[in-house]
């Protein structure tokens, strides 16, 4: 039993490392110097390699100006990085290569300022928060009607919604572009927000939740003279906090990560969201891998932090998406 268990753990650890290694490498590459990367320092350790001159007593950092067969001309630096002797001829056997750990944290700042990432973050937050808010409002209202009211066409409308859920995004991308163009909404926040403020999956999820609330509560509230609207506010929503936060998390992650839609609908650089901005940045700075890694790191950081804070809930929300009705 013990042996079996250790094999299971071994497999899980190896696979876990495989899952996580791209992120580790992303961060370690983000703090390397581009020069070192180009020289071939591809591993996980952000070191710096430089020649060192040994004058017999002390080690000095040097810069090789020109090299000959058995001796080189070098500039010698002191510890403060000041040249103390320039163009000095030294024998090659007194020169060695040294490696030193060096973290270039300034890569993050440089990447952040190279294109207006602050603006991209702002746009993304505006869009994501609005979408989440809209999804919860429209979802609660519709789910309340579907779950708790009888009206003509209820089943039909509900199945219409469900069948719309089956339509993949690329299919309605082009006609949506035409619709948004007619509304004059291309290149506006509306194009990124309005089409996404009703989420069928959220309606479905909330409807399931609202159905589980006991009828007695509704009857009691109705006797007390509570209106439909009052019941929604005073009973239904407070009892559904956890499902609502699940829906909010889903909406936020989806909106934060959406790429194709904003890529198509937005042309104005001032309205670019993070994913689109990052994509343009990756074309502009394609050779500066350290900056790209730095930008990728701070782009995914907010969601990673959100995930680490609420991992239990996020995982169980995703798991619930697979449960059959």
């Amino acid at each position: 039993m013990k042996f079996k268990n250790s094999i299971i753990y071994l497999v899980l650890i190896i696979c876990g490392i495989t899952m996580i290694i791209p992120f580790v490498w992303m961060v370690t590459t983000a703090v390397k110097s581009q020069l070192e990367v180009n020289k071939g320092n591809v591993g996980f350790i952000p070191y710096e390699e430089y020649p060192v001159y040994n004058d017999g007593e002390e080690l000095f950092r040097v810069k090789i100006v020109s090299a000959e067969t058995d001796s080189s001309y070098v500039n010698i630096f002191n510890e403060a990085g000041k040249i103390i002797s320039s163009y000095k001829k030294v024998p090659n056997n007194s020169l060695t290569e040294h490696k030193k750990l060096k973290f270039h944290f300034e890569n993050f700042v440089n990447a952040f300022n190279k294109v207006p990432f602050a603006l991209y973050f702002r746009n993304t937050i505006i869009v994501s928060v609005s979408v989440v808010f809209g999804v919860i409002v429209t979802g609660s209202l519709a789910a309340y009607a579907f779950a708790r009211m009888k009206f003509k066409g209820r089943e039909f409308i509900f199945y219409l919604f469900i069948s719309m859920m089956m339509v993949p995004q690329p299919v309605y991308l082009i006609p949506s572009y035409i619709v948004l163009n007619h509304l004059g909404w291309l290149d506006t926040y509306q194009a990124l927000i309005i089409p996404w403020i009703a989420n069928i999956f959220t309606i479905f999820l909330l409807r399931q939740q609202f159905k589980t609330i006991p009828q007695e509560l509704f009857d009691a509230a109705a006797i007390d003279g509570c209106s439909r609207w009052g019941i929604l506010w005073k009973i239904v929503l407070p009892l559904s906090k956890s499902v609502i936060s699940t829906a909010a998390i889903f909406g936020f992650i989806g909106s934060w990560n959406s790429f194709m839609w904003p890529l198509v609908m937005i042309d104005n650089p001032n309205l670019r969201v993070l994913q689109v901005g990052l994509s343009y940045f990756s074309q502009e700075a394609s050779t500066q891998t350290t900056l790209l890694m730095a930008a990728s790191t701070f782009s995914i950081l907010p969601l990673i932090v959100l995930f680490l804070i609420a991992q239990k809930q996020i995982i169980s929300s995703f798991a619930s998406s697979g449960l059959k009705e």
Partner: protein
Amino acid sequence: MKKKQKLDIGPYIYILPALIIILVFRLLPIVLSFIVSFFDWSITGVGDFIGFENYSRLFQDPEFWQSMLNTFYLVIFVVPISLISSLIFATLLNNIKALKSFFRSVYFIPTVTSMVAISIVWKIIFNQQTGLMNFLLAKIGIEPLGWLAESRGIFLLLFESMGINIPTHLGGPSLALFSIIIVTIWKGLGYNTIIYLAGLQNIPAVYYEAADIDGAGKIKQFFKITWPLISPTTYYVLMMTTIVTFQVFSQIYLMTGPPIGGPLGTTKVIVYFLFDKGFGESNDLSYASAIALILFVVILSLTLLQKRLEKKVHY
């Protein structure tokens, strides 16, 4: 009294906001897409009715068939590999107590991160000179590979390394497309594992206890109890992974090229093809609509096919 019997408009008011959005931004676009595909339509305005011309053009377009083939390769590799590995992970996770939620979270991280950032990172990982892949291969003494720049098929490369030459058309997906396959599997694995784990936890422990008493081995238990009881989950995972893989776009857009879809068009997939026709140089929205409808029909028929199979094999 009669007035009370009148239609209560209350419920409709509650549904209205969601209904408007869904009608205007889901149903209308689909209807529009259908109409547009029969017209010579561009962003400047409505053109002439051209009937099935877009469709006949599409079926004669070698680019369309190549994107279909590439998408098919993607699905045929990603779906089974992802399904089997996630079931294995979930089974292993279901068998441990300590660190269970830790591993679950680790596997899940790629799912919540954006495909754009992930694509940028993996593009650099696959870089021939400064990438991690060739660095690791070198550590175990394997020659560097071309990865995203390699247009030759993986089977061709595999057999070539053993000194056997096979015809190019049997080469399979290019190594570039296979790199995309790796990323796509990696990205989706955590989600599928979570879904499977939830499914496994729904199987009552008494079944296994009874099987233990009967002396059935673990392997037998898996095939006689787990596999049949987990089949609804398997169908869900199968369906979702297929649908999602059919729509792969960001990876292609960010990792391949220039030109995107390269090398030699071996990574051009159907959604990129659609995007390129609609919003690229030609800006042919009606042609792109025809592509979108074909994509819709393919995904819909696959979904229906799997639903039928599911009913047949449901335990």
